[in-house]
């Protein structure tokens, strides 16, 4: 009969297949062969390398690239922001060692607790008419009486683990932060009008701040940050510390992180924009940074604590002060910048006086700037403006309002505005 595939399958095919399952696995063990050959004085070459054979894959693998990843496939040399020298870039993320690392990076020492006397003396000095009413109105309007209601980012309620988490609606944090800050600033401007200093201030929303530093051993540091708000002034702030105190700072030591470098865990990248960017150009009337307002989302950023806020304030103030110092023509007076870090409820004030633009080396750390002038920092712990501002049982409720916080903000605002705090520009 004809030997067909069907007959083959019935008779010998199954045998073939079952035998093949045992026989198809072949152990290729050339180790002893190679040893035996080399023992006899023969040189063994790899065939593929000898003839330059390139094995090709049966099917070429297609790499799926994510959207926006095409730029990464461009050769580094052809990318517009690529530099040969790597730079350490700080853009506002948490520093591993917190405020101590920020101080070590910027060669700063903290002066005591609290703000300088120059600012604390202004607290409560001037008040707006119906101040508390107006401030509570601003808080309620920005947090509760806002028609923009969106689904907020999910926050796990730990008291309801395992149960369905309630969906939370409310004013988006970005919007409420911004409206609260601009509302509080507009109240401060009422005071400025009364004190005849309204035209000396300018408010900027999310300006870009960028400062470049080169250490003595050639490392690059780039601090780039967008504060939520920048209050600009047409005259610089007076220096809180006199010249003797500045000179005495040579003896003080910036925080020692040894054996850790101040640049620890900072991103070292080759793609960056190496430029100094001030909020406004040098020829503008309001070219002096008065106060920076840094906002963060306190609802979801639980790992941002007081220490990290201090770090953020120090780095932002330092970038702004360095830009101001580089813009002014002569050596002149030390640049002074104020800062308020807030999540809408907590407010943390800081003041920085820039006496030197030097930054330490990554390798030697504090040792490289030991006998130089230090920058001076005054800061205080974050204080809540209110305890709770939300709808409770269907009614808007603002509980635990702290009137002192706005007094302190006013003091910061007035610094440089009142006649006796205006520095002698001549």
């Amino acid at each position, binding site marked *: 009969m004809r*030997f067909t*595939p069907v007959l*083959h*399958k019935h*008779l*010998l*095919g*199954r*045998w*073939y*297949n*079952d*035998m*093949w*399952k*045992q*026989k*198809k*696995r*072949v*152990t*290729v*063990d*050339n*180790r002893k062969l190679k040893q035996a050959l080399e023992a006899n004085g023969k040189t063994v070459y790899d065939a593929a390398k000898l003839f330059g*054979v390139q*094995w*090709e894959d*049966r*099917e070429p693998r297609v790499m799926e690239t994510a959207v926006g990843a095409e730029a990464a496939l461009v050769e580094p040399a052809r990318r517009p922001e690529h530099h040969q020298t790597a730079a350490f870039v700080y853009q506002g993320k948490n520093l*591993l*060692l917190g405020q101590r690392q920020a101080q070590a990076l910027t060669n700063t020492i903290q002066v005591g607790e609290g703000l300088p006397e120059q600012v604390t003396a202004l607290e409560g000095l001037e008040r707006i008419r119906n101040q508390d009413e107006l401030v509570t109105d601003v808080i309620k309007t920005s947090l509760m009486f806002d028609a923009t209601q969106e689904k907020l980012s999910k926050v796990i309620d730990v008291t309801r683990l395992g149960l369905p988490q309630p969906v939370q609606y409310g004013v988006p944090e970005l919007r409420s932060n911004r409206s609260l800050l601009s509302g509080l600033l507009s109240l401060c401007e009422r005071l400025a009008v009364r004190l005849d200093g309204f035209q000396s201030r300018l408010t900027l929303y999310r300006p870009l701040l960028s400062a470049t530093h080169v250490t003595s051993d050639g490392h690059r540091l780039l601090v780039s940050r967008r504060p939520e708000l920048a209050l600009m002034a047409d005259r610089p702030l007076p220096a809180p510390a006199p010249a003797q105190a500045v000179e005495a700072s040579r003896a003080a030591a910036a925080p020692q*992180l040894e*054996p*850790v*470098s101040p*640049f*620890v*865990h*900072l991103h*070292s990248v080759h793609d960056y924009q190496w430029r100094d960017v001030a909020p406004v150009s040098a020829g503008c009337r309001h070219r002096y940074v008065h106060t920076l307002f840094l906002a963060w989302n306190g609802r979801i950023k639980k790992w941002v604590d007081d220490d990290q806020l201090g770090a953020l304030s120090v780095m932002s103030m330092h970038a702004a002060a360095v830009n101001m110092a580089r813009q002014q023509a002569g050596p002149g007076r030390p640049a002074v910048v104020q800062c308020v870090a807030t999540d809408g409820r907590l407010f943390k004030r800081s003041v920085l006086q820039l006496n030197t633009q030097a930054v330490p080396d*990554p*390798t030697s750390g504090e040792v490289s700037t030991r006998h130089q002038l230090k920058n001076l920092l005054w800061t205080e712990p974050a204080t809540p403006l209110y305890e709770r501002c939300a709808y409770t049982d269907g009614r808007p409720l603002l509980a635990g309002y702290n009137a002192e916080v706005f007094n302190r903000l006013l003091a910061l605002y007035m610094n440089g505005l009142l006649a006796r705090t205006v520095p002698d520009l001549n």
Partner: protein
Amino acid sequence: MGLSVPVSSRTPPDFSRVAAMLASVTRSLQLVRLGQRALPGAAQPLRHISKDIRVPDPGVGVQYRYRVQLPEKYTIKRLPIQKLAGRDPETGRVVVGTLGGGSKQKYRWVDPERPPLSDGSPRRERVLQLVYDALRTCTVALVAHGEHVRYVIAHEGMKVGDIITTYGDIPRIPVRPAVGDAHPLGALPAGTEVFNIQKYLGEKDRICINGGTYCTVLRRVGDRVIVISPSKRQFSLRQECTCVVGRVSMRFPSIRPIGSAQRLRWLGYRPRSGLWQRKTGRFGRKLRRPPPVREFSVPPAPPPEVMTLSLHDVHVHNPSSQSQLVKTFRGRSN
């Protein structure tokens, strides 16, 4: 298994594509008797011969719970894992049936090496954080030296702010070691409790990294050091191999006591059958003489390559010439 046909009365089938395999097949056919199967040639047992499924045996050092894709450059970012649920990573076959599910966990890439600085001087690192690692039984520490941050296995009693030092030299007189410091084995006196011992020079294999464990340095023999492990086994290692002084920290909070069946599910264990089975002689504690000292000198050579030849397909290294491929035989395929 098929009809039994005397080999001598048959001529081999005229298939040109199996001509190369003819000699091997004919030899094997001569071994086949009616009703019997030939012994499988490979090491792995066949699950069912007609299905040709080879189940891998549980091996030492193979991870059946998860697999992690490590990036090219070391990072302290927590990496996602791919759960295997008891499957062998190579073949994908289920090896352990009681693994699976559980809460999501992230992998922390712990740097096993403790080298000194490149010029040979001691490396001093500060402990920044003590981190809980769900995939280990020990606590993991975030340490930093200069700009480099990495995870290491924490020793018992480690605190944030401690300085741990790594030495690379072997002095003539053994040092008085401090807990947490890393030394070559040859620098330590007998009786020192150590962990994270390097097995082979230049390799990343380590002994004794599980929570709460430690090895003890017993004695020195020439340029080798004998250590005894928690299982009472003795290992002979080169004196240049580094180790860390102290005991491995336990994970806090500990897994034990489990407390409920549901908790085991959260930990990634599936239910067992619960059937009572009579235990035979292989169960239970055995009092045996410990095996002889095992010497670690060079890493074992990789196992020889096992090629799986295919009956129906021919590998062509130039895929453009598809005509050279033989058509697949329309029968049972491999």
